[in-house]
């Protein structure tokens, strides 16, 4: 199926939880989904026979400018039917909440932990949401564009980067 057909299918099924289809300025046409609906949309994408998205290739957090909403991007692939779709969910910077897909895709477990670690995005329903690359007591989420490193970490001075 093409991305347009998948978008039409999703819109018919989930109506207002599917926001729009972005085709400009991207090589992977992207369906914008309400952050709270990601879990059920992914369930549907994986379990419907004609869609059969059994593989989550990649999950990434993103921060555009340090002011607007954070986003999470899901790159999905069906290894059986060989079609692709990209999902995107926007979430508030301060009170970020996106529903977790860790129970649907095993890949998402660690990738969501990484997005929490580096962007501070909370994934509701994740079985064990904790930092993965940084230490538990690290302050802040470094990939946010407005991140300012603390002066010290466990008594060690953190070098300033320009």
């Amino acid at each position, binding site marked *: 199926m093409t991305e347009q057909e998948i978008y039409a299918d999703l819109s018919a099924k989930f109506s207002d939880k599917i926001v729009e289809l972005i085709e400009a*300025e*991207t*090589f*992977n046409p992207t369906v914008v989904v309400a952050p709270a609906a990601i879990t059920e949309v992914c369930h549907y994408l994986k379990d419907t026979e004609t869609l059969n998205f*059994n*593989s*989550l*290739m*990649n999950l*990434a957090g*993103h*921060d*555009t400018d340090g002011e607007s909403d954070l986003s999470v*991007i899901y*790159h999905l692939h069906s*290894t059986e039917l*060989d079609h692709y779709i*990209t999902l995107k969910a926007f979430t508030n910077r301060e009170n970020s909440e996106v529903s977790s897909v860790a129970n649907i*895709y*095993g*890949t998402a*477990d*660690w990738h969501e932990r990484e997005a929490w670690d*580096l962007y501070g995005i909370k994934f509701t329903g994740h079985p064990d949401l904790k*930092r*993965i*690359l*940084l*230490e538990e007591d690290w302050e802040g989420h*470094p*990939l946010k564009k407005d991140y300012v490193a603390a002066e010290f970490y466990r008594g060690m001075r953190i070098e300033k*980067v*320009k």
Partner: protein
Amino acid sequence: MGRLHAEEMILNMGPQHPSTHGVLRLKLRTDGEIVSHIEPVIGYLHRSFEKHAENLEYQQVTPFCGRCDYLAAMGSEHGYAMAVEKMMGIELPERVEYLRVIFAELQRIASHLVAVGTFGLDVGAITPFIYCFRERELILDLFEMASGARLLYNYIWIGGLAHDIPPGFVEKTYEFLDDFDKRIAEYNQILTGNKIFVERAADVGVLTPEVAINYGVTGPSLRASGVNIDLRRTQPYSIYDRFDFDIPLGEGAQGTIGDSWDRYYVRVREMEESAKIVRQALDQLPVEGDVKSAVPKRIRPPKGEIYFRSENARGELGYYIVSNGKNVPLRVKMRSPAFSNLSVINEIGHGWMISDVIAILGSLDIVLGEIDR
């Protein structure tokens, strides 16, 4: 069950441990000798690749890519270069494409040699390791000849190569290939069918296709489970559609499909296939062509985003790149294959003995540099 439950014990394997292939800690919950749960603790080699990338110009990111998967640096650079080229719509000279394939496949052989050798080492076979490193050395010599470096090359640039290959490179590569076929027969003799090795690896840590796909396991580890997905074939990039090669799959020749032995043997056979590709690419290599003719003066991809994936030695290497039209990327996310491959270890490793967990970990062939980035 009628079995006495001994007290559970937490055992830390690593971060400094010879069989963890880097700086990795496995938190093992053990019940006697049996491991009931494995929790990998990663991040010891985190070097903030993605944060750095957001502060560097596009061409300055290339060397960092190589440092992530330091055993397959050519492949990492290749993937990154292709992603940016696709964003910018750069057409490459034929000679560049062929040379890139030659280097990427030689790198795959070198990386698999380490995987095969260290896996043998993990389960107690020391000699094959030395043999594998002997051949890897020859490949590193070739890389040194072309790029000046042995491990981290910064050779594949966006839009081309750092410089053309020196005179004598093609002949020396042919020489290596002629020799290499015999070497593979040697590994098979000394390790593949070795009874002790088979006992340690066959039937151990069986990875089923469903679990593999669900956890995003890719590359040889996925194909060992019998899943025929190789991006060089299923989604051909560069010029891979011009070569004739097979995709080795796990067949369960010594036990079950998807066991540790299959993961080992798929890599051995992939080396043969890569050698075949290198030979074809050398045969067809165009003589004419400036490898720098397509390198852009200013690298400013148009506003937009891309997810581009390629088949690196360990599996699907994806780059998610967001550009805002400036010379510095807004976001570079590396979807590293070993990160997802390692995440499956509890699924296939629990219920086995501690020594088997070491075999399973070895068969997954991880590189901590790209897991932690």
